[in-house]
C-alpha cells in the first residue's frame, strides 16, 4: 500500500490541531506553519499526480480493513487532478490572506488547514459515509472562515449558509440510508458492482436515493434550483475565503463526476443514465440564472458570485452529456473556472478596499486608487471569466461546444453558451466601466480630499508591503490561467486519458475490490 495517499488528509489535520494549541497567540508562527503545510501539500499532490498518471488507480485501506467492510481512499487521475487544483489554490490564496485578512479574527490558519483537510478527503475517499464526514469537516471549517472578521451582514449571511448546509447534510444522510438499505453497501466500487443486480421492486428506492444524492451535490455545486445561497454567501464572505470557496462548488461537481459514471453508467443495467435527464436541464437553467444575475448584480461581490453560478452551469452541462470528450472538456473548464473565479474574488476584495466607503457596491464613487493597475487586472480576470480569447476560458468553452456537437440537445447547448457569454460580457463591461471610468470623470474635487487623507495615513508604509501579497497572489492565479492556455494541448491530452479512466469504471472497481481479494 502506498502510504503517501493518506497524507493529504493527515498533514492538515495534524497541523490544524497544532496551530490551535501552539500558535494561537503568535501569528508569525501560525503563518509560517500554515504556508509550509500548504506548500508541502502541493508538492505531495504533484507527486501523487505523477503516480496516478503512470499507474492504475491505487487504494489505501484505512486500518488495513479490506475494501467493502473498511473505508478506502482511492487515488486515480481524477482525484489527483482535483488534489493538485485544491492545494494550489489553498497555497496561493493563503499568501493573499497573509497580506492582512488573517489578522481580522482568530484561528484563521487552523480553520484554513481543516478546510483543506476536508476538501482533500472528499476528493480521495471511496466511501459514501466517509464522503459525508469529509463534507461536514469542510463545511464546519467553512462556517468559521465565512464569518471570519464578523460584522452584521456577514453573520446574517453566515447563519443562512449554515442552515442551508445543515438541511443539505440531512438530505445526504437520507440518501445514504436509502442506498444502504437497498444495496447493503456504502463503498462506491461495491455499489457499482451491486447496482445491476438490484431487484426490480427495489430499484425505485435506489433511484430515489441516487437522485437525492444528486440534489445534495447540486446544492454544493450551486445548481438551479438550489443555487440561491451562493451569491449572498460569497459576496459577504471575506475576499480570501470566497476565493478558496471557488473550489467548494467544484467538490459538488467532482462528486457528481465520481458517482454517476461509476455506479449509474452504461454497465448499470436498468439504472444506467439515471442522472442525465435531470442534470442537463438543471445545468442549462443554472447557466441562464447565473449570467442573468451577472447583469443585475448590485455589487462586485454579487457579480463574481453569479459568474461562479454561470460557470458551474457551463461545467455541469458538459458533465451531463456523459461522454468522454465532454468530460475532458468539462475538466479543462473546471481547472480554468476555479482559478479564474479565485482571481476575481481576490481582485474584488482589493478593489473594494481602495474605493473608500463605496466598497464593492456598483455605484459612482471616488476613483479607485491605483486605477490603471487594478483596471488592467480586472479586465484580464473579466476576459477569463467571460470566456473570451486569448485566455483559457475561451479554449474551455470551445472544447465544450465541440464535444456537444453530437448531442441531441446540441442546438440548446450552443445557443445557451454563446448567448450567455454575451450577457456576461455586458455585465462585466457595465461593472468595469462604472467602477473604473464613470467615477474618475467627476472625481477631481473628491480626489484632493482623498490625497490629504492618504498623506495623514503615512504609517501605512508597512501595510503597503503587506498589501502587495494579495496582488502577487492574484497575478499568480492569472499567470496560471495563461499557463493553462499555453499548455492547453498537453493538458487536454492528459485530461482525455483521465476522462477515459472515469468512463472505464471496471478499473476503479477492480482496484478497490481487488485489494479485498488480495488480503483474504
Amino acid at each position, binding site marked *: 500500500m502506498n502510504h503517501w495517499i493518506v497524507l493529504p488528509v493527515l498533514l492538515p489535520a495534524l497541523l490544524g490541531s497544532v496551530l490551535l494549541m501552539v500558535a494561537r497567540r503568535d501569528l508569525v508562527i501560525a503563518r509560517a506553519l500554515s504556508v509550509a503545510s500548504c506548500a508541502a501539500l502541493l508538492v505531495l499532490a504533484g507527486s501523487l499526480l505523477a503516480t496516478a498518471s503512470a499507474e492504475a488507480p491505487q487504494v489505501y485501506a484505512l486500518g488495513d480493513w479490506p475494501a467493502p467492510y473498511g473505508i478506502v481512499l482511492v487515488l486515480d487521475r481524477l482525484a489527483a487532478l482535483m488534489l493538485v487544483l485544491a492545494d494550489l489554490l489553498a497555497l496561493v490564496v493563503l499568501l493573499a490572506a497573509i497580506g492582512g485578512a488573517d489578522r481580522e479574527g482568530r484561528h484563521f490558519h487552523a480553520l484554513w488547514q481543516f478546510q483543506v483537510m476536508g476538501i482533500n478527503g472528499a476528493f480521495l475517499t471511496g466511501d459514501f459515509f466517509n464522503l459525508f464526514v469529509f463534507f461536514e469537516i469542510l463545511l464546519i471549517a467553512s462556517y468559521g472562515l465565512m464569518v471570519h472578521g464578523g460584522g452584521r451582514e456577514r453573520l446574517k449571511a*453566515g447563519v*443562512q449558509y449554515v442552515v442551508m448546509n445543515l438541511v443539505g447534510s440531512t438530505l445526504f444522510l437520507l440518501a*445514504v*440510508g436509502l442506498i444502504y438499505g437497498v444495496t447493503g453497501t*456504502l463503498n462506491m466500487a461495491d455499489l457499482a458492482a451491486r447496482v445491476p443486480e438490484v431487484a426490480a421492486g427495489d430499484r425505485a428506492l435506489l433511484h430515489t436515493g441516487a437522485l437525492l444524492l444528486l440534489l445534495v451535490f447540486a446544492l454544493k455545486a450551486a445548481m438551479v434550483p438550489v443555487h440561491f445561497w451562493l451569491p449572498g454567501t460569497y459576496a459577504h464572505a471575506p475576499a480570501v475565503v470566497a476565493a478558496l470557496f471557488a473550489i467548494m462548488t467544484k467538490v459538488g461537481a467532482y462528486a457528481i463526476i465520481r458517482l454517476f459514471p461509476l455506479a449509474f453508467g452504461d454497465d448499470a443495467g436498468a439504472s444506467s443514465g439515471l442522472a442525465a435527464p435531470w442534470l442537463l436541464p438543471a445545468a442549462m437553467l443554472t447557466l441562464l440564472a447565473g449570467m442573468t444575475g451577472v447583469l443585475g448584480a448590485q455589487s462586485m461581490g454579487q457579480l463574481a458570485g453569479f459568474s461562479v453560478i454561470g460557470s458551474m452551469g457551463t461545467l455541469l452541462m458538459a458533465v451531463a452529456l456523459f461522454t468522454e470528450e465532454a468530460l475532458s472538456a468539462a475538466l479543462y473548464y473546471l481547472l480554468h473556472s476555479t482559478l479564474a473565479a479565485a482571481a476575481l474574488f481576490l481582485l474584488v476584495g482589493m478593489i473594494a478596499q481602495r474605493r473608500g466607503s463605496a466598497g464593492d457596491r456598483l455605484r459612482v464613487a471616488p476613483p479607485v486608487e491605483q486605477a490603471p493597475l487594478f483596471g488592467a487586472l480586472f479586465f484580464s480576470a473579466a476576459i477569463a471569466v467571460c470566456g473570451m480569447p486569448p485566455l483559457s476560458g475561451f479554449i474551455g468553452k470551445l472544447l465544450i461546444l465541440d464535444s456537444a456537437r453530437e448531442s441531441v440537445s446540441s442546438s440548446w447547448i450552443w445557443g445557451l453558451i454563446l448567448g450567455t457569454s454575451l450577457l456576461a460580457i455586458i455585465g462585466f463591461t457595465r461593472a468595469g466601466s462604472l467602477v473604473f471610468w464613470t467615477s474618475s470623470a467627476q472625481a477631481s474635487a473628491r480626489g484632493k480630499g482623498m490625497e490629504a487623507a492618504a498623506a495623514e495615513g503615512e504609517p501605512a508604509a508597512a501595510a503597503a508591503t503587506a498589501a502587495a501579497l494579495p496582488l502577487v497572489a492574484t497575478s499568480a492565479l492569472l499567470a496560471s490561467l495563461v499557463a493553462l492556455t499555453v499548455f492547453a494541448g498537453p493538458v487536454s491530452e492528459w485530461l482525455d486519458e483521465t476522462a477515459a479512466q472515469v468512463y472505464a469504471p471496471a478499473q476503479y472497481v477492480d482496484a478497490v475490490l481487488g485489494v479485498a481479494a488480495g488480503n483474504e
Partner: protein
Amino acid sequence: MEFLVASAVGVLTAAGVYLLLRAHTFPVVLGLTLLSYATNIYLFATGRLAVNAPPLIDEHLARYSDPLPQALVLTAIVISFGMTALLVVMALRSWSVSGDDHVDDGEPASATAREDRP
C-alpha cells in the same frame, strides 16, 4: 412496530420542515434538531428493524441486527449535535449584532414576516 417507526419519522420530518420554514432562528434550530432526529431514526431502520437481536454474528443465533447503521447513527448524532451547537452560537451572535433573528437576508423578507405575526 414498522408502522410506529415510520410514522415517527414522518411526523418528526413534517414538524421539522414546518419549523424550518418559520425562518426565525429559534424555530429553525428546533426544526433542524427534529429533522436530524428523524434522519437518525430513519438511518437506524435502514438496517431493518429487529428486536432483541444482538449486532454480533454467532453460530447459536438465528437472528442478528445490522451493526453498521448503529455506527452511522452514532456518527450522525455527534455531527448534528456539534452543528446545532455551532448554529446556536452563530445565531446568538448574529442576533446580538443585528438585533434581528430573521434567517433570511434583506429587509423586505423580515417586513413580510412581521406582518405574518398576529
